[in-house]
């Protein structure tokens, strides 16, 4: 059996994870084709402000008369884009730092891990707010800010994996074969250390989406795009009279983050050798 079908067989056993994957698939589809198919600019004053859901506006309009469904679809793009890009960046930086520290050891390990610890002691959301506030809020800055506060936990995990793999006999065998350190790190140890890193990377997507929502709720989002957090931020002033305006993007964030977490949990069970039945 090929590795992929074996993986799917294990993943399928976790029902909630399959559900999460379906929901996540729908969100991805909505982000990819929704804005084009729906065809309404989320910034347009499409109708009267604060209307209830109707045939013309399936989810109603917000305080400025903008179509909420159009905002939701455009926001899906932003949330997924920033979530995935920030997570990838954080995973790359974290893996590089953790792998180097774990493989080389000694004083380099000590220095890299103290730097990592230093980052971990700063409350991450406050740190992200600080970075975005210093630079001009844009998709790139927000992504890098979220990545900058997310990499340390990846680094710690990658380091732990590399430390446990470094003294395995197959590493000695590769050395005895004449392989160099970089080749051993990237081509021999990394594939062994990857499963937990993939899992934490997928969970980082969820926390990055939450962080982005938080930033744009506080008005630190990219002003040129609509995002879910921004929609909640706009609607918070009318929370008592038009609760659905905040509730709709809020529930969307909740469902998306929950789906990603379920997928991450499913990946963990399918990839983690310790949870694999013999």
């Amino acid at each position, binding site marked *: 059996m090929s590795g992929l079908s074996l993986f799917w067989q294990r993943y399928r056993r976790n029902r909630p994870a399959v559900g999460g994957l379906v929901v996540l698939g729908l969100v991805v589809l909505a982000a990819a084709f929704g804005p084009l198919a729906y065809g309404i600019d989320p910034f347009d004053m499409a109708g009267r402000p604060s209307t209830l859901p109707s045939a013309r506006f399936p989810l109603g309009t917000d305080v400025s008369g903008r179509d909420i469904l159009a905002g939701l679809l455009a926001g899906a793009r932003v949330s997924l884009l920033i979530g995935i890009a920030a997570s990838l960046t954080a995973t790359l930086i974290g893996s590089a730092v953790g792998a180097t520290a774990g493989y080389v050891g000694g004083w380099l390990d000590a220095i890299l891990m103290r730097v990592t610890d230093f980052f971990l002691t700063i409350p991450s959301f406050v740190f992200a707010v600080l970075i975005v506030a210093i630079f001009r809020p844009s998709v790139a800055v927000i992504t890098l800010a979220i990545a900058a506060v997310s990499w340390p936990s990846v680094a710690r995990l990658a380091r732990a994996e590399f430390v446990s793999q470094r003294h*395995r006999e197959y590493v000695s*065998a590769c050395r005895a*074969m*004449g392989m160099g350190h970089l080749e051993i790190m990237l081509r021999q140890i990394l*594939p*062994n250390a990857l499963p937990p890193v993939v899992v934490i990377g997928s969970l980082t997507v969820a926390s990055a989406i939450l962080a982005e929502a938080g930033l744009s709720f506080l008005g630190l989002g990219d002003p040129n795009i609509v995002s879910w957090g921004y929609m909640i931020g706009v609607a918070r002033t009318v929370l008592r009279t038009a609760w659905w305006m905040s509730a709709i993007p809020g529930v969307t964030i909740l469902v998306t983050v929950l789906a990603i977490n379920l997928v991450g949990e499913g990946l963990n069970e399918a990839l983690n050798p310790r949870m694999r039945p013999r």
Partner: protein
Amino acid sequence: MSPLLAVKGLTVDYHGMHNAERAVDGVSFSIARGETLALVGESGSGKSTIAHALMRLIPRGAGSVSSGSIAFEGQDLLALPEAAMRAVRGGRIAMVFQDPMMALNPVHRVGRQIAESLLAHGKATPRTAIDRAIELLTLVGVPAPEKRARQYPHNLSGGMRQRVMIAIALAGDPALLIADEPTTALDVTVQAQVLAEIAAIKSRLGMAMLLITHDLAVVSETADRVIVMYAGRMVEEGNVEGVFSRPAHPYTRGLLEATDWEGAASDRMREIPGSVPNQGEMPPGCAFAPRCAIATERCRIERPSVERALHGGGVSCFAAGSPS
């Protein structure tokens, strides 16, 4: 002709928390081209450390070669720059490890692992590597090599895995093969097969071999010469035939008597009383003196040097040759 490998006065210390531990103490030996030398001893006698010292694979923080020299094919391995040493590893000296399940990378197909070894030493191009890997699998007696090459280590049996390890070792076309307990982790039934395979390939390719084992039966079947190690020191060396028929050192005699095999001098198994001394409790004289039945006062204070033995090899014992 100078020997392929000449080791002189090799001393290896492991750095403990407070004190250095001497794992190998002034060991000298040489291996001629095509010859098989066996290193025999209990675990902790320093035989694996010698192998790792030859490959310069003792982790920097853990220990180091304190003195001695290793001359291989006219090069001083201890003085070689790291880049040149990498070409020696796997290229001129290859190693087969004890447990092939641990020594193979679990996430790569075995064909790829052999191919990586070929590519590391320029013995194949990326296009030809897999075909050459399949040839090597055939050479080491793996049936259906095309199918096996696409499998992962956990799909193979222990004997097949060790054959894959041997194929990886052969990939660089080495002049010296270090086999560190190559059959210990295998089922008894396949031990003999794998050993015969190694011996056959060795003679076909004209390689020399350093065989590390605690199994005297393996030594008598495979090796030309033998070195008996005790607590990091060499106690006896010589031709297998001579050492086994006329062991000069009381420890060698004890080992032979403690082993149940056809060639053993006695038909009754006997154990050696006591245990290997811990580092730090090493006696000032002969390391074996506390367990030795014929030890004298001199053995306890003075360390014997390696002298010529009756069987033509060397022995490190004051009472060598005298009947016990």
